[in-house]
């Protein structure tokens, strides 16, 4: 076993060992009573491998914090703009309704006057009989 360890150590110090051979070397060293220096070396390396960070924390996505005073100003501005816009819409609707009523009243007036005109023109209908006396009386007198 010691011969194998010595061979592996020679290769190890020449940096010619594979990871598998290095693993084998560590296992053989644990079973050996010699090679104290190498045992210590691999022991302290194994201990160093156990060193882990304690206070490292997983970073979190940063959430933008809004300034409360800025929020109140923004809210006030939004309310003012909203109120003004609402008032504008209301005014426009009222104006549209008033215009509609006026137009409808104008149409009603026109309709009324048209009816009166038609009634006034009714006697003119009799004029169509002016040249038709023959048709009414002439034939029978001859």
């Amino acid at each position, binding site marked *: 076993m010691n011969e194998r360890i010595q061979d592996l150590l020679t290769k*190890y*110090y*020449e*940096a010619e060992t594979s*990871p598998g051979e290095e693993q084998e070397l560590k296992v053989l060293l644990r079973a050996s009573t010699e090679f*104290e*220096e*190498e*045992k*210590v*070396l691999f*022991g*302290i*390396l194994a*201990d*160093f*491998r156990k*060193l*882990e*960070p*304690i*206070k*490292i*924390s*997983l*970073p979190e996505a940063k959430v933008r914090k809004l300034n409360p005073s800025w929020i109140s100003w923004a809210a006030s501005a939004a309310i003012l703009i909203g109120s003004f816009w609402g008032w504008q819409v209301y005014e426009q609707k009222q104006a549209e309704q008033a215009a509609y009523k006026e137009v409808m009243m104008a149409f009603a007036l026109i309709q009324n006057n048209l009816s009166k005109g038609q009634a006034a023109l009714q006697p003119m209908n009799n004029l169509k009989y002016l040249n038709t006396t023959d048709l009414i009386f002439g034939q029978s007198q001859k």
Partner: protein
Amino acid sequence: MKSFFEAHIWPQRGKLYRLAFSWVKDRALAEDVLQNVFEKSFARQKELSNHANLSGWLVLSLKNEVLTHFRQNKKIDALEDANQFCADEPQPEDINESIQKIMLLLNELPERQRDIFQLREVEGLDYEEIATHLDISLDQVKVNLHRARKRIRELMITQKLAK
């Protein structure tokens, strides 16, 4: 559903932390610089999802973060000088004996050899993965690992860490 950060970057925290720790020799500072890198990579995760070498980018970002920290604190001008700075700093009380020993060994290696040695021996990466992490060639990895192991062996004998 996990985000790209949670699936691909967050699982690397242990490895990146140990790398940062070997550079700065201070647990709290290593965590701080890693947290900064995580915050930046979290913000850029959409862009990083298309990155050809994510691990390499993370290691480089971590190194830049450490350098920025040292420069801002006007302690050193480059990471290579960190050995001197860290040697003067008192070791944290809670650091255990093994970590003190490995730090003593790693401090004796040049920066490139130290990173390669650590990625291989501690993180268990293969040569290709190390080359990708450090954005260097495979030959550079092998040569530097060979030198690092040789140097570590000499140190083990001279410093008699086994006793």
